[in-house]
């Protein structure tokens, strides 16, 4: 029930959409001068492929710790927004925290702790690797990188368009919620019952606000798609040349190689340590 209380405080009050918008924008565009953001997306994606997959297959604790330290450092280098880190923490905690409780209830014992630690490290390493790559990279670069690896054009368009639209959409949503806020009359929420009622009220408002939001967004998408037609979006989607030109801006630099080499060195050292123990 505590969760319910927390939720009712969170949804509209503490976590204002303004804050959210700011954090997401910060995450997307506020860190475009970091080392990570300056790197070639193709290299980062390969790097991610390693750190996003390999930890799942390995249960060696020193190796996992090594990987974890490395991705933690890269996350710091990427200057990821606080909200994303908070979500990361929450995700890791809820995954292993609950697991622990359930194992204990169903008759598990202390022997469960070690596998749980390994699992936690795995989850944390993989998530941080994805945080580094997907939050640290400029969305446009990411889109180009994915395209280079042959992802559908629609996906890379969606990524950069999403970042373009997000501030507008959020503002629109915020304005509609404000309309409800200014004209609505939420239930008193001092008592416990009141809090539950308030939570229900908030959920209802959010659902209701999608009715105007859908109509407003529909108006927008029409213009957007007409413009896409004029600007030759569909023409480009089937033209190989366009892809080539677009991807020609991807260039690998020494920094990228250095990043790979240092990561490699670190992993090699961890393996060495783990064989020595």
């Amino acid at each position: 029930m505590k969760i319910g209380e927390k939720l009712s405080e969170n949804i509209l009050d503490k976590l204002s959409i303004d804050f959210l918008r700011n954090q997401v924008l910060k995450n997307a565009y506020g860190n475009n001068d970091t080392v990570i953001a300056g790197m070639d997306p193709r290299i980062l994606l390969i790097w991610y492929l390693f750190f996003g997959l390999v930890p799942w297959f390995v249960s060696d604790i020193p190796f996992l710790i090594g990987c974890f330290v490395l991705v933690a450092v890269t996350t710091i280098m990427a200057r990821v927004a606080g909200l994303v880190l908070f979500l990361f923490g929450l995700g890791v905690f809820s995954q292993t925290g609950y697991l622990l409780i359930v194992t204990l209830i169903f008759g598990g014992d202390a022997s469960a702790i070690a596998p749980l630690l390994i699992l936690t490290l795995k989850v944390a390493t993989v998530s941080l690797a994805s945080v580094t790559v997907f939050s640290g990279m400029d969305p446009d670069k990411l889109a180009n990188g994915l395209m280079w690896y042959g992802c559908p054009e629609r996906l890379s368009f969606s990524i950069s368009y999403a970042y373009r639209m997000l501030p507008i959409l959020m503002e629109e949503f915020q304005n509609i919620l404000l309309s409800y806020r200014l004209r609505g009359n939420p239930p008193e929420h001092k008592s416990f019952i009141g809090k539950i009622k308030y939570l229900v009220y908030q959920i209802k408002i959010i659902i209701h606000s999608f009715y105007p939001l859908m109509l407003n967004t529909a108006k927008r998408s029409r213009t957007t798609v007409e413009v896409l037609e004029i600007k030759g979006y569909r023409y480009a989607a089937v033209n190989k040349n366009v892809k080539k030109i677009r991807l020609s801006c991807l260039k690998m630099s020494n920094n990228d190689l250095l990043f790979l080499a240092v990561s490699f060195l670190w992993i090699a050292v961890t393996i060495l340590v783990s064989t020595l123990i």
Partner: protein
Amino acid sequence: MNVIETKHLTYSYPGADKPTLKDVTVNIEKGDFLAIVGNNGCGKSTFCKTLNGLIPQFIGGDFKGSVKACELDTRTADVADLARKVGYVYQDFENQIIRPTVLDDASYACLNYAMTDYKERGLKALEQCGLSGKEDDFIWQLSGGQTHLLALAGAVSLQPEVLILDEPIAQLDPKHADGIYRVLKNLNENHGKTIIVIEHHTEYIADFCKHVMLLKDGELKWVLPTEEALQQVEELQECNIFPPQVTIAAHRMKRAGGLNDNTPLPVTIEKAKDLFALKDDINTSAPLIPSDNSEAVASFRNVSVSYRTVKGEPHTVFKNLNLDINKGNKIALIGSNGAGKSTMMKLLVGLLKPGTGEVLLNGKSIKNVKPEALSRQISMVYQNPEDMFIKDSIYGDISYAMEVRNVENCMERTEELLKCFRLTELKDRDGRLLSGGQMRRASLAIGVALNPGILLLDEPTANLDIATRKEIMRTLEDMKEITETVVIATHDMQLVCEWAERIIVLYNGEVVADGNRNEIFGNPDIVNKVGIRPPEIFSLGQEINKDALCYTIDEFLDKFEGRA
């Protein structure tokens, strides 16, 4: 040479029972700067969409006749080829920008059409549109005017021969509006582009356009040189187009016999100033409104506010702001985009809490009060009425606030408001699907539903054609009876002059002037510093005699006579 040729163009939208365009035959010459005017729904936008092949290639419907753009038949030509000939800038230009950064968006079309020099083309377009130096900015960092210029640059990048702009200045303050038109003029004169604008600001037409085309109910009335076109005062007014104020003034004086019948009507201040002279016997100074000593209903006490920004330091909007709004005030809040007008309104309704200092409403601090608890004291109407519509009918929207508060005789009051704002017939329609003026009236009705003592209006006349604007101004005039204290944030100086009793000028987050219209418009320092553009008729009076302060055509005609 003609860049556009249409022959017997008739078009109806899919599912529509009446054609939107009827038998339009027109030629547009290369190098022209053409304004298309007409009442709402006369088919202006539709006509323009036929010129770049959007109709009928992407929007179906019944298309008869032919359109040739730069020798290409729009029905059969490749869209890629057409796009390189005809560029289009939408009215809701914000949605036209697709990429997250400036240069990227400007060069997007060139990239899609596989031009290897797409970057250079984008850069060139940015330069032509006066956006040099902004290449790496993100879209949301741009002001409204710059966003519009970028939408233009996106179209210019393909270097089309024809550029079409749908109401390019509807949402801009005068400074930015001038900027857009200067860019268009440059493109027209120095780069040989043919420009077509849909425009109802006739002062801009008079200053910049070469020809005017009048559409009425889907039919072409005429295409005339600008001067001649704007003199068709009666025909234009019939279509809800209002010629420049100076032209109307001269027209009215002519009808009253004050001017020679043969004199052509002036369309700019430059031409008009020699036609009029001050009457000798009239006292030039307008009566001053006595300063009021009524109690303050809202006050700012040492208020400072700043916003979080994506990068770097927070942006400070107000620093130590002190201001009183008194009971019964009819205030116009003016200042350029970003001066802090919206922030001030948000502070008043409690949506934004000041960093330091406090905001008082009816003598009480609203620091710990939730915004919804204030809604009986103060209410705000957004600039974009669509954000006010949260229900599926305007009846539902107007009654919502009263219903949830269990207001007695809520139904009667809703009916009353519907009647008062002339919305009774539309009450079951969705607000979003109404026309611009109806939408605006509905949003005002929603704003006063709870009968608040203070009403805040954000740009109530933006995006409206002149006829609708007049209608809204009449509604606002009526509302003076309903609501005691009203604050309007606006760029619309005609509204300011005709409606406001007190004007507050904001500049970089500071109140730089506060007074009646004579104190503001009669003070050249303020006018120049803040970039206020007074109504044309006021400037005309000033041009002839510095002491003449007349804000409306009626006042002008009272004080001036035709020069013999």
